[in-house]
Each structure stands twice: as C-alpha cells, then as structure tokens.
C-alpha cells in the first residue's frame, strides 16, 4: 500500500483524527474547544474533497472516491459543521456538557462519508451502522430529559430492525450474484440471463430497510417521536445528514442497476403514502418539531417520486433536492432552536409575534418555511420544480398531480408558522434568545444559499450533471 492508495480515504482519516483530538481536547480544555477542533476537522475534510485536481485512481478495495462521493462528502461535512455551530449555545443552555457530543457528531459524519465512498456492499453496511450508532447516542444525549432517552430507545429498536433488513437483503443479493462489489452486484451478477430471484428478493429487504432510514410511510412512525425527543440541533442533523446519506446510498445502489422496474411499484406506493400521510398529519400538529417531522416525511415522498422514475434525470433531481432540503431544514431547525430556547415546549404558539422582536431568526424561519412550501424565488421552488419535471418526464403524471395537490395542502401548515411569527401579537417579552455568532453564521449562510439557488441555480445544475453523467 502506497501513499497514493490513501488518497480517497483522507477525508475519513481527517474526520476520525478530529474526533479523537476532540475527545482528548475535552480532557485538557473543556468548553467550546472540542467543538472548534471538530469544526476545523470537518472543514478540513470538506476542503480536501473540494480540491479541483482529479485524484489518482484508487486501488484500495471497497472504497472509491468518485465525483459523487466527493460531492456528498462536502455536503455532509458542511452539514456536520453547521450542526456543531448550532449546538454550541443550545448545549450550554441545556447543560449537555462534555466532549462526547462533538466527537459523536464527527463519528456520524464519518459514517456518512464512508457510506458514499463505499464501492462494496459490506463497507456500505458498516458505514450505515457507524452512522446509525452515532445517531442512537446523539438522540439520547440529553440526560436530563426523559423524552430524549425514550426517543433514543425508540430509534435504537426500530433502527436495529431496519439494519437487520438491510443486512439480510445484502446477504441475499450476495447469494444471487456471488459478489459484494456494488458495480457488479447491482448488474444482477455476471449472469446475463437477467436478474436472479434472490437478487430481487434481496432488493425488497434493502428497500424496506432504507424506507425506515429515510422515514417513508409506512416505516415512518419513529420520526415524530424521535424528532420531538432529540435535542433540536440533533433533530436538524438527523433530518438532513442521516436522510441525505441514506438517500445517497440508495442512489449509489440504484445507479448501476440494469433495469429498475421492479422497484417502481413499492416506491410508487411509498411515495404516494408519504406525500398524503405526511402532509395531512402535519396539518394537525401543534408541536413545531412534530410538524417538521411530518413535513420531512412528505418531503421524502417527493424524493421517492423522483427516485421511482429510475432515470438519470430523476436521480439528478434527487441529488439537487437533497442539497436544497438540507439547507432548508438546517435553517428551519436552527432558527427554531434559537427562537424556542427559553420556552420549555415547542408549541406553535411559542412563536407568536417573535418575528418582530427576533427579526433575524424569525426571518430565517419564515424563509425556510416558504422554501419548504416551494414558493419562488427560494431554492425550494427550483428543487420541487426539478422533481416534478423529472416525474412528469418519467411518465408519472398521476402521482405528480397528487403530489402537487398535497404540496398545496402543505402550504397551510408552513404558513401557520409564518402567521404565528408575524401576524399574531407577542404574548410576553422574550428573554434569552439572542442569536450567538456561530448561529448567525449558519443562518446567514443558509439564507444566502436559499436565495442563491433560487435565483441562480445554474452552478448547482452543472455540478449535479457532472456527478451523475
């Protein structure tokens, strides 16, 4: 093994080193230092992936650092860094002390990056497990809150079942194709006669497992409870990073497929149910975090709508929308964690009139809501447009129309947040919700990106075209 072989895994090494340093650093200088170390490590890994020079062909077995992996490595490291920035003040307030928090976030990012770098089914599964384990801990990290522990347990139990499904699915695919190499296995093995039944069966299990990971209906039941129980920045990370990673892994598996027609029907049903159930359930929520959880279920339904076309155009739309959705959800959860810092609950009424006394996070939350609702000129509009255009091009007219109608429904609950922010009078003078500098950085960056993609999506389109040729 030479130095060159290590190139593709350098981001992973940097992240791991960062996590260990954060742990050591916590022992020496606690407080904010572990966070800063972790953020620097993440940005370093992201920058490595960003470098324009084409990396030499990787010869390590099981990993490949292709443009797709590089793109998502950058996305996940930035998401992780944003999560850490958002967590600093929140954790101080909630007395979530200690260096294990930033270190665990780094382990989660490690899992995500390893997931998209994998070229082998086993590595893929290990990465998925690493990622899930980090999240089991993160969800339950608020020791003073019973809900947090409850959410952690719920996520662990259901997550373990989902992992078992995926593991079994991989095993079946291996039996059917005789290889763990993704590129070969997903062609249905070396046999040219067509996909063996074991292969199809294995995919059935894999799809069920991933449906849980990205919370598609009917595997969505954990989502609202876990989002509600988890600390808000963790919920942000869970809804963006872990779902983005699971979707990226699914894309990685689906892209080499010779024919994906057998995936059409299950995905069709799950997309339909997710859009309808997610949006309808979100309508009646009174807790903001539960509402955002159901909203994210609906958003996953839109993504499934693009996935089930099993076309390149659909995959591009998925990648585009993952970026848009990540930015929007980070902004939404981030602004919530600031605005609701002093309140105990997360009721919708807690936002009454806050848009005027807390203009910055208020405006960011409103922007994120308009974005999630798909109102131009935000990124959400372009993303949804791309999704629906891909679905219509793939011939899914009926599902697209249903999707659009549920999207119209969704505007109601997104608007309710805006109504509470700006149209209702303030109940009591707020306290202790000042925006700190790290949070401000995240809010500013998210707002700029939301508008930038909404008005000038050309660069992102080019990038997506390059990673999925």
């Amino acid at each position, binding site marked *: 093994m030479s130095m060159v072989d290590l190139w593709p895994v350098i981001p992973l090494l940097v992240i791991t080193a960062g996590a260990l340093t954060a742990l050591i650093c916590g022992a020496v200088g606690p407080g904010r230092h572990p966070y800063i170390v972790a953020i620097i490590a993440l940005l370093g890994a992201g920058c490595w992936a960003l470098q324009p020079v084409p990396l030499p062909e990787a010869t390590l077995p099981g990993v490949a650092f292709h443009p797709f992996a590089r793109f998502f490595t950058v996305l996940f490291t930035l998401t992780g860094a944003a999560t850490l920035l958002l967590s600093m003040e929140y954790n101080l307030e909630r007395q979530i002390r200690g260096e294990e928090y930033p270190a665990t976030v780094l382990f989660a990012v490690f899992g995500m990056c390893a997931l998209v770098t994998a070229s082998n089914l086993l590595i893929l599964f290990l990465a998925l497990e690493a990622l899930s384990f980090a999240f089991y801990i993160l969800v339950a990290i608020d020791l003073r809150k019973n809900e947090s522990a409850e959410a952690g347990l719920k996520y662990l139990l259901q997550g373990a079942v989902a992992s078992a499904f995926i593991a079994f699915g991989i095993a079946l695919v291996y039996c059917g194709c005789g290889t763990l190499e993704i590129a070969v296995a997903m062609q249905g093995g070396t046999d040219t006669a067509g996909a063996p039944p074991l292969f199809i069966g294995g995919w059935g299990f894999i799809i069920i497992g991933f449906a849980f990971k990205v919370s598609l209906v009917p595997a969505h039941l954990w989502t609202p409870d876990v989002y509600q129980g988890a600390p808000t920045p963790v919920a942000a990370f869970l809804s963006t990073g872990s779902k983005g990673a699971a979707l990226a892994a699914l894309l990685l598996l689906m892209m080499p497929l010779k024919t994906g027609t057998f995936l059409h029907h299950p995905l069709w049903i799950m997309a339909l149910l997710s859009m309808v159930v997610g949006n309808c359930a979100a309508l009646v929520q009174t807790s903001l975090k539960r509402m955002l959880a159901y909203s994210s279920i609906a958003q996953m339904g839109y993504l499934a709508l693009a996935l089930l076309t099993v076309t390149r155009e659909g995959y591009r739309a998925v990648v585009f929308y993952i970026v848009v959705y990540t930015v929007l959800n980070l902004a939404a959860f981030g602004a919530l964690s600031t605005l609701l810092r002093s309140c105990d609950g997360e009721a919708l009424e807690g936002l009454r009139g806050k848009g005027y006394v807390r203009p910055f996070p208020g405006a960011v939350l409103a922007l994120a809501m308009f974005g999630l609702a798909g109102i*131009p000129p935000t990124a959400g509009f372009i993303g949804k447009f791309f999704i629906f*255009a891909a679905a*219509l091009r793939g011939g899914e007219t009926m599902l*697209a129309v249903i999707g659009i109608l549920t999207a*119209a429904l969704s505007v109601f609950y997104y608007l309710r947040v805006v*109504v509470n922010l700006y*149209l209702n009078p303030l109940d009591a003078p707020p306290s202790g919700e000042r925006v700190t500098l790290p949070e401000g950085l995240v809010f500013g960056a998210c707002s700029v990106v939301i508008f930038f993609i909404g008005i000038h999506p050309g660069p992102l*389109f080019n990038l997506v075209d390059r990673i999925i040729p």
Partner: protein
Amino acid sequence: MTTFPLLTILIFLPLAGTLLLLPAWRRSGWVRPLALIVGMAELALCCWLTVVVGSGTKLPTTVLPGYFLREDLTWIKRLGVHYLLGMDGISLPLVLLTSFVTVIAMIASWRAVTEKVALHYTLLLVMESGIMGVFLSLDLFLFYLFWEVMLVPMFFLIGIWGHGRRIYSAVKFFLYTLTGSLLMLVAIIVLYLLHGSQTGQYSFALPDLLRTVVPHGTGLWLYGAFLLAFAIKFPIVPLHTWLPDAHTDAPTAGSVILAGLLLKTGAYGLIRFGYPLFPDAARLFSPLLIALAVTGILYAAWIAYAQTDMKRLVAYSSIGHMGFVALGIAVWTPVALSGAVLQMVNHGVTTAALFVLVGMLDERAGTRDIGAFGGLWDKAPQLSFCFFFFAMASAGLPVLNNFVGEFLILAGTFRGHHLAATLAFLGIVLPLIYTVRLVQELLFQTERQPLPVADLTLREGGVLGVMVMIDLYLGLHPAPLLAIIRFPVSLLTGTDGGTP
C-alpha cells in the same frame, strides 16, 4: 434587441427602491416620502414610455411582431429557461396602471398605516416589482415565478394591517390562489416536455411554445389547468369566494392593489398565455366561460345589493366588472377583446378610487356600515362629489370610462352571442340599482348618526382629482389608448384589426 435594459429597470426599480428604505427603517416620517419618490420615479418612467410609444416613435425593432421592447437572456441553461421580457400594446396600459395604482396605494396609506410603516412600504414596492414582472414576462417559467412572488407581499399586507378576520382572509387568499397556480405549474411542465419531445429543444419561451402541436385531449387538460389558475385570480364566479373576505379585511392599500392590479393578472394571463397557447381548447371552453361570466355579472349585482358593508359591496361590484372582462375575452373578437383590455384599465382606476374613498370614510367614521352614514353631501361636499362621481363611473354612466369598455365588450359580443349580450346588458343596468341605493343612503339620506366626517385634505383631494381627470379622459377620449391596444389584439385574434 435593445441594449438598454428598460424592461428590467421597470421590474427591478421598485425592488431596488426598498434598499433606499433600509437606512430610514425606524423613521416613518422619512420612509413615506422615500417610498413615494421610488413609486413616482417608476410612474414617470411608465408615462415616458407611453408617450414615446403613443407618439409613434420607432423604438428599436424586435423579432417579435407587435412588441415595442424585448429583452432576452439565457437564465437557467440546463432547463432552457430564458429571461425573456417583452412589452406590447396589451402590457403597456397594464404596466402604466400598475405604477399608477401603486402610487395611489402609497398615498392612501399615508396616514392609515402607523405601525411598521417601513415594512408596509417595502411590501408595496416588492408587490409592484412582482406585478410588473407578471405583465412583462414572456417566458412561462419566469411568469410563474413572478406570479407566485406577488402573493407573498399581499399575504402580509392583509395579515398584518388588515381588520376583522385578517388572518383567516390572508390564509384563504394565499391557499386559494396557490392551489390554482400549482396545477398550472404542472400544465406548464407538461407543455414544456411536449415541446421538447417534438423539437428536441427544451424551452419555456412563449414564442417557442406557441409552435408546439398540442394533441387535442392533452390540450383540454392543460388549458383547464391554466384556466383554473387564471379564473381564481379573476375571479370567475364559482371560484370567487376568497375575494370578498380578502377585500373586506385588507387595509385600504391592500384592497386598492388587489382590485386594481391583482385581478388583472388573471385576465392578462388568459389573454397572453391561455388563448394563444391552446386555441382549440379555448374555443371549446368558450361557451362555458361565457356562461360563467354572464352568471358572475348577474350574481355579483344581486349579492352586492344585499350588502351592508360598503367595502364588501364594492368588492362584489368588482366581481361583476371582471365578469365583463371575462366575457370580452371569452368571445375573442377584436372589438370585445379591445374592450376587455380597456375595461381592465378602467376598472383598475375606478375601483381603486372607490376603495380609497371607502377607506377614507372608514378612517374618519370608524365604520363601514352603510346604514350608519347619511347626509354626507352637506357635511363633506368634496368627498361626496368624488364618491358620487366614481360610483356613477362604476355603474357605467356614459361619458365616464367604464361605459366605453362595457359598450365595446357588449358590441363585440352581440355579433355572435345574442343571448349572452342581452343578459350582460342587464348586468349594466343592475349595478345602477345598488349604486344608486349606496349613493342615496350615504350622501343624500338625512344624517342618522353624528359621525365625524371631515372633508378631503389637500393630499386626498389631489389624488382623487387626478383620478377624476383620468376617468373623464378615458371616458371622453379613449382613442389613443385603443390605438395602442389595437395592433396586438388584431394579431391575437388573427384579424386585420377590426374597428374598435
């Protein structure tokens, strides 16, 4: 193609003007004049353009027939979206109307808005940009973008400064219009894919899409989706229920813009996109549209008579007038279509003036109940005169502007649709009943409650005076405006001009 991006400036000047308000955000005394300067500058620009066009000066010729100005830039290459703007004889009057009505709205809320003044004027300016964009876009993607952008400021205008059930009305307005437009979005995408599969070149530009061969069945669905979106904005009768609520609860500036401008975008969309893109389907749907338009005219007159809240009454009268516009578009003859475009301008000015007047009465007396007023003519003669004048204009009194538009529409309709024209003629008479009742109760009835109604101030008098002049001018001498409208209408209807 012009080198000077006049149309871009027209759209983005108000938006850029909001930056001017930022330094003065907390000083309402500064914000109002600053916003007004921006609005005036925009109005001046539009007036100058109209004069240049009206005097027949050759503007740089463009590729598109009938267009004075055109701008074309590639915006999103990947999707084939162009930043394509164009101004012809149909958009020019509406653009002028937009800048004028926005200025009126700014002056109308001069004293009425005392809280969050800067935000209010910022929203007005953003709205102006959005509406300008709707009237000037020739790319469906761009059009759709502006179409939705203009909803957001109106939502806040109603929701923050409104009265009564303002939140309910604001949300209803937003959801109602958005649902229609989302289905239009699907239709736009389908049309775009259809065009792409036929020519191999994906584009949203109207001139390209006009060449698409739309299969009959698909065309019906697509046109249906377009029609739904535009009919909600119009509003055409079974889809009108958002309008009375939105109008009643909106602040004066909101009502003025809603009636004066937002309703016009629906009619404009139908003229610019709906009919030209799907001529066959439009012809097939036209009896339905005619029936709905006539129903709307009669129904609105009937309901308006029963109103006790004068703002609601004006709102319903507005539905009736837009019914005439819908009728003019539905029959699609040169005369009727010219009348429809003219009527959009007329209705914009007259109804805006009525909403301003109702707002003034509300501001002074604190009530909009028709039964509470009486004997205003003696107490506030100038205000009463203006009210009388615009009420009569709205009822279609000859010499005043609305008469011309309604007359042209009826004349154009009568040729092919005797029954519809006859029924719609009733729709000219019926408004007289409720208007006369309104005027009688408000102005000439003996005073019922001692309400503090002062006469017009200089600011109010000036605004209304200008509007009176415009109404008279358009009523007595509509020829210059009709001359501008005539050519694009003849292109659209495929005739050599007709004699409007």
